[in-house]
């Protein structure tokens, strides 16, 4: 087996194991619930019968291993069980977690996709320029601005944009309330401010990492060697620098898209965007554990997959593994 394939397969296997362990952890959270939990969900007026019915419905009367197996099989088929918000009500009125999560997930993916489409090319270009014109005025200004925008909280950036671009100057919608029937263009317009906030935060991260990666690369001996032997600059970059640059570039992109996953929670709340982040925050407040589990699992899977993709790409483009000898 070629070494590239073997390493990639190893990494994929490791990723699967991680996913499995994470699923156990997220499932195990329900085991850690305090004993009076049913009361907290059903309210103080809950009778012993409703409490017992609730525990049966959640499945607390069966052994954990069996419940995990059932839960995992369900999750693999997209079934996360029923939301607690309908717990205690009559059978047939239960709301499934997936009916809550699916529309929200679509909205979040839309926002994240929009941000990625703007932020990735922008930050790669900015980072490359900053690296090529290192220590120039441009570089310093960009450096200081990005250091500042990295270290401030997302909601600060969000509210500043909202205050100046939506309230004082009514250019954009201040709230991003969309529903399933919102036409595409209006959806984009309503998402403008949240997308802008996330772009600002992410570009800062991505640009700094790109700059560092490129500087590192250009300082390596083989690039200097290529330059010294008189190759034209485009050839130095395309033939010598770029093959080794794929790994850091993809890592940078994946890490920041993973960061987007967390950033999206706060930004969705600020702009009242009906995404999965807001759903999760609401469910945490009402302690609707199945919904929290589903959201956490989705976030974790996206996070792990992004990291996995980054690793696989950097292995698959590694010249030392591609031309072994």
């Amino acid at each position, binding site marked *: 087996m070629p070494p590239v394939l073997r390493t990639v397969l190893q990494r994929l296997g490791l990723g699967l194991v*991680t996913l499995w*362990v*994470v699923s156990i*952890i*997220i499932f195990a*959270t*329900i085991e*850690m*619930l*305090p004993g009076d939990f049913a009361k907290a969900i059903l309210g103080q007026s809950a009778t012993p019968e409703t409490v017992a019915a609730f525990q049966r419905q959640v499945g607390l009367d069966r052994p954990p291993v069996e419940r995990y197996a059932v839960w995992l099989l369900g999750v693999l088929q997209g079934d996360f069980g029923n939301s607690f918000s309908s717990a205690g009500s009559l059978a047939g009125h239960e709301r499934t977690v997936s009916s809550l999560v699916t529309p929200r997930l679509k909205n979040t993916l839309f926002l994240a996709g929009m941000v990625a489409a703007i932020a990735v090319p922008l930050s790669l270009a900015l980072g490359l320029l900053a690296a090529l014109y*290192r*220590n120039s005025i441009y570089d310093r200004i960009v450096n200081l601005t990005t*250091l*500042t925008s*990295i*270290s*401030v*909280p*997302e*909601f*600060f950036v969000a*509210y*500043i944009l*909202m*205050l100046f671009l939506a*309230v*004082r100057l009514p250019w954009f919608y*201040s709230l991003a309330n969309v529903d399933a029937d919102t036409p595409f263009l209006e959806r984009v317009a309503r998402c403008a401010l949240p997308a802008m906030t996330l772009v600002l935060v992410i570009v800062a991260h991505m640009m700094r990492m790109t700059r560092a990666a490129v*500087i590192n690369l250009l*300082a390596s001996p083989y690039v200097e060697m290529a330059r010294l032997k008189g190759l034209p600059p485009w050839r130095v970059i395309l033939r010598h620098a770029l093959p080794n640059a794929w790994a850091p570039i993809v890592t940078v992109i994946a890490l920041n898209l*993973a960061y987007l*996953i*967390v950033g999206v*929670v*706060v930004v969705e*709340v*600020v702009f009242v965007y009906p995404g999965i982040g807001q759903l*999760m*925050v609401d*469910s*945490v*407040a009402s*302690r*609707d*554990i199945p919904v*929290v*589990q589903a*959201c*956490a699992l989705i*976030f*974790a899977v996206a*996070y*792990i997959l992004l*990291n996995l993709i980054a690793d696989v790409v950097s292995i698959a483009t590694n010249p030392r593994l591609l031309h072994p000898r």
Partner: protein
Amino acid sequence: MTLQTADAQIAPPRAGLAKRALRELRRAPPSALLGLAILLAYVFVAIFAPLIAPYGESEIVGSQYEVWSEKHLFGTDQLGRDMLSRLIYGAQNTIGIAIATTLLSFFIGGSLGMLASLVGGWIDQLAGRLVDVLMAIPQLVFALVLLSIFGTSIFNLILIIAVLDSTRVFRLSRAVSMNVVVMDFVEAARLQGERIPWIMAREILPNILPPLVAEFGLRFCFVFLTISALSFLGLGIQPPTADWGSMVRENATLISYGDVTPLLPAGAIALLTVAVNFVVDWFLHKTSGLKDER
């Protein structure tokens, strides 16, 4: 590598700690000085909050959402409490909780990291894999899950964030102390029959301190931002405790009337983290011996 530079820093003849500190300060870049000044101001306000604040922390002194006036410099909040006083008390609560969390996280992560590198074997393996798994889930998401189970209280908040954040401290302290545990003086201490906690505290810790101090600043920023984000989401520090994150949330409606008041607590958070970053940046440059990437 870090070790040598660390030694080189500690080794030169001790020309009076105060004098050396002053000399370093004079050579510090303006951004670091600015950051240091801001930090000192925050600490001052936090410590003397009850003396500085014109009103009590959750004392209702006016009607809701009063505008900025001489009586209430930054107006009042959604319950008629003085905004300026809440901001000042917020410094105490928000920074205090963040520091407590960071200290706890360093205690857990640091001691486990040193232990793993010192003992090695299955303990090292187990701790390492555990940290890998914990880090496979985004921290804010994990914190949300745990908060939904244990409920929101300051104690839970500190514990959860500290444990989640200690994973990064573990990695760093393990990596750095790996270089120290192979040294002769650690071997000597072992042969002398010293106990593991003693070796960790007296032989390893002093040698890995400089990178840990820089990391402390960065971790503090991260913890501070995470707690603020959670408070902002309504899941962190609970009312009536004055806290900057929750203050932003509580007064956010004012934004839609074009009022900048909700930006004040958010700005207070932002300014502090920027200041810490400036200072840490300078400190990292000093301890790593990096001149400039050139």
